[in-house]
């Protein structure tokens, strides 16, 4: 909503296109999982998942048309999730890098 009081109504065509993209991405991520990409397989899987998330959030959840305040809140939520994951992993991934005296 841009403030003029009228809701932006997306066309059925847009939604069908988003749905087809999501279905194609699902099939692609399943097929590519059977290919040996080494450590990159998780990178590919998560990249596809993030793209799918963006499609759902922007189109189906109408972030595209939402107020700046709502967008800020969503971005803030993702930031906190990032803090949760980053700080947790910064602990677990760095354990054992330095020797503990007396151990």
């Amino acid at each position, binding site marked *: 909503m841009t403030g003029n009081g009228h*809701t932006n109504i*997306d066309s059925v065509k847009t*939604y069908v296109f988003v749905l087809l993209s999501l279905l194609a991405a699902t099939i692609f*991520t399943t097929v590519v*999982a059977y290919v040996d990409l080494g450590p990159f397989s998780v990178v590919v899987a998560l990249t596809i998942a993030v793209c799918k998330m963006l499609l759902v*959030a922007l189109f189906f959840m109408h972030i595209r048309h939402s107020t700046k305040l709502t967008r800020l809140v969503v971005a803030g939520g993702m930031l906190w999730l990032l803090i949760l994951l980053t700080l947790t992993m910064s602990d677990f991934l760095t354990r054992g890098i330095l020797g503990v005296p007396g151990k």
Partner: protein
Amino acid sequence: MAEHAQAESLALRVQFDTAEQQKDASTLGMWIFLITEIMFFGGMFAAYTVYRTWYPTVFAVASTSLNAPIGAANTCILLFSSFTMVMAVRAGQLGHQKMIVLFLVLTLLFGFAFLGVKAVEWNEKFEEHHIPGQAAFHLEGLPATQQGNAQLFFSLYFAMTGLHALHMVIGAGILMVLIWQARKGRFHAAYYTPVDVAGLYWHFVDIIWIFLFPLLYLIDRHLGK
């Protein structure tokens, strides 16, 4: 003026100036709730990340025991339900009351289909003795010393898919209430906020699954061939 606005939108509360402001507040409120849900699921994703980092091969073997084609098909069912949900919201925007009911019913049916497939998958796990905590727990392809770590994977699998399914069940309940209200003609172009915010919840649950599917089903599937 205030009376006129109230005639246009039955549910305009006194604290709001316009129906638009009221709708924006509802949307924002739902997003705040979804943020708390992101943090709720986030803790589980963090636990998953830690254990997968510690036991990468065990997680790969355990993941290969899940049925990826069925998981992919179920993902597609859920994506279809999101599509019908957004079409219900669109019908609300346009004020097509019968279409709101139709698309909400379709969303509910897709939701039940997803839960049905999930139930079949869980049942398979019981038959294969892949239930963590079971005395007979045994995952093929792993030495006895790593069976405990495999149980960790299945604990996370059941906790995460179970919590997701619980959200689906709650979503189905919300849909049933909305269908009942929509049939009575409660929603129209000037007021469809409940359909809109329920849609946000439904799509959020879809997004959680979008991440659960590759993280649980698709770890290094090439090992299984």
